[in-house]
């Protein structure tokens, strides 16, 4: 039961015209067990109505024009569920009333003199009706709340559908991109493969030409230059294939120091006749990790080759190795630093993208391949934005792959 939530809603408001009437009314209400308020002043009734009432009892003499207006106004403003019972005590029946009482809505007119028992019985039935109205009010409120909840659930559902649709669209776009990249990768790998036959035909003709023109030494230079171009093209295709082909790591225990030393050894032809030194600054215990030594050698060779190509003699490359943590896992960081001009004034953001090169010569795939290999190991590669002179590249690898 929702009725009488604050103890005021089932009150009977009585408008008494005299003190004596008021006293009698109070006594009657008390005896019948009604909660009530007896008002003697015209404004009081309207005030009390605002706080809550189960029924109103009026007599014709209390129905002055001012009070009638205020009451009619209040009754007219009732919410749809509310129909406040008004008991009107009239000496000559309904016809004796000074105002048309239809405007007061749910009016019960009792002829005076009224027997107390009759009045109590009428009031009881009025309160019961009022109680029923309160129930309807609560029911409506309940329904409103349920509807609101439903509306919110609906809105939430719509939002989720929208979110999911957006997610799906994003996933689809990603899949499409990945598919396209895979197709490009396949095409490039195929291209690099197919190019071998064409390269071989070129090479065959070039070699035969060399034999046939052996007695024309003035043409040797031209042939040599063609051979250099042919070798460059061959190398480019190899690197493109390397970059595009899937990386299958052959993981094993790997001493990084041994790997970069081997890479440095491999660059011997490039270092010949130059003043270049490799300086190691690391504790031996730090250089072991699980990795593909062959692939990492490729990474170091590219980095060291860049260092050799960057500066004038004497080139000094410092390789340092330190233990660190990466996403809560044990990792090892190798820093390769040279004494060349460094990256000052160079846009390093696109450094690791394919075909971005700062060198006049080179395919622009070296660092892109490095990035691919390092990322295949679950590691990262970055250029240091250190301020000192010289370029610095940081390679971070987890000690255990996955």
């Amino acid at each position, binding site marked *: 039961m929702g009725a009488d939530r604050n103890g005021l809603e089932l009150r009977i408001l009585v408008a008494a015209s005299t003190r004596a009437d008021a006293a009698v009314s109070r006594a009657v209400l008390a005896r019948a067990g009604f909660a009530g308020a007896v008002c003697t002043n015209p404004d009081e009734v309207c005030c009390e109505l605002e706080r809550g009432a189960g029924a109103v009892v009026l007599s014709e003499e209390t129905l002055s024009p001012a009070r009638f207006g205020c009451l009619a106004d209040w009754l007219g403003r009732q919410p749809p569920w509310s129909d406040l019972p008004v008991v009107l005590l009239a000496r000559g029946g309904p016809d004796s009333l000074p105002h048309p009482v239809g405007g007061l809505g749910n009016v019960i007119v009792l002829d005076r003199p009224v027997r107390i028992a009759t009045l109590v019985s009428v009031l009881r039935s009025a309160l019961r009706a009022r109680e029923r109205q309160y129930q309807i009010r609560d029911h409506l409120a309940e329904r409103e709340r349920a509807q609101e909840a439903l509306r919110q659930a609906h809105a939430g559902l719509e939002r989720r559908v929208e979110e999911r649709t957006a997610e799906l669209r994003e996933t689809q776009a990603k899949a499409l991109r990945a598919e396209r990249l895979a197709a490009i990768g396949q095409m490039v790998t195929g291209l690099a493969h197919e190019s071998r036959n064409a390269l*071989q035909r070129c090479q065959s003709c070039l070699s*035969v030409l060399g034999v046939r023109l052996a007695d024309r030494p003035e043409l040797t230079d031209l042939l040599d230059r063609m051979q250099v171009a042919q070798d460059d093209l061959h190398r480019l295709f190899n690197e493109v294939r390397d970059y595009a082909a899937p990386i299958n790591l052959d993981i094993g225990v790997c001493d990084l120091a041994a790997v970069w030393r081997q890479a440095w050894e491999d660059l011997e032809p490039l270092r010949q006749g130059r003043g270049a030194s490799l300086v190691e600054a690391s504790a031996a215990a730090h250089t072991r990790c699980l990795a593909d030594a062959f692939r990492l050698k490729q990474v170091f060779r590219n980095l060291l080759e860049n260092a050799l190509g960057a500066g004038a003699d004497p080139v000094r490359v410092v390789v340092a190795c330190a233990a660190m943590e990466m996403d809560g896992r044990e990792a090892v960081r190798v820093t390769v630093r040279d004494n060349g001009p460094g990256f000052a004034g160079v846009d390093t953001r696109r450094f690791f993208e394919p075909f971005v090169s700062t060198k006049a010569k080179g395919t622009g795939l070296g660092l892109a391949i490095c990035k691919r290999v390092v990322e295949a190991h679950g590691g990262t590669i970055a250029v240091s934005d250190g301020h000192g002179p010289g370029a610095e590249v940081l390679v971070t690898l987890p000690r255990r792959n996955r």
Partner: protein
Amino acid sequence: MSRRTHPLRIAVADDEQDMRMFYQELLPPLGHQVVAVTANGRQLVEQCRSTRPDLVITDVRMPDMDGIAAAAAVNRERQVPVILVTAYHDVDLLACAGAGNVMAYLTKPVKPVDLQAAIALAVQRFEHFRQVSEEAASLRQAVEDRKVIERAKAIMVKRLRVDEEEAFHRLKTVASNGHRKVVEVAQAVVATNDVFKGLDWI
């Protein structure tokens, strides 16, 4: 161009005209003779039969019998070292190249220096391979001979009531007198014993 391999008679196969010209003109300066120039595997097998080359250099992918099948066919008739030259990384194909005496593998584009190194390597490896095979064959023969001699000795110990040392000595004497090998005499003893089986001769 350091140490030269001794002059070889070489058969080549490639479906590319340019590649055949390459072999024909570049192998002679390296000190070799091109005895057969073919465009597919079938031709290669046929020409190897008549020219009997010291070395075969063949492309892998060719129409009318690929290089690997041709290498195997050639080697069924006569043992010859083979160098495979291909434009592809045919790892799977190579797995079935065992029967063909493939001694080296080159990926196109191939330069004369690559060819020179591969030829040296292939010849060396094949020579080594042949030595090892011969050694194995002779060891196998020695084991077989030994078995026959042991059987002959056992027969003589039983029939002639002599000890093993005496039996072996007699075998050697008979062999030396008749200018025969010990194993031949031993075979005669075993054969005689088989013929006279059941006869109680002294």
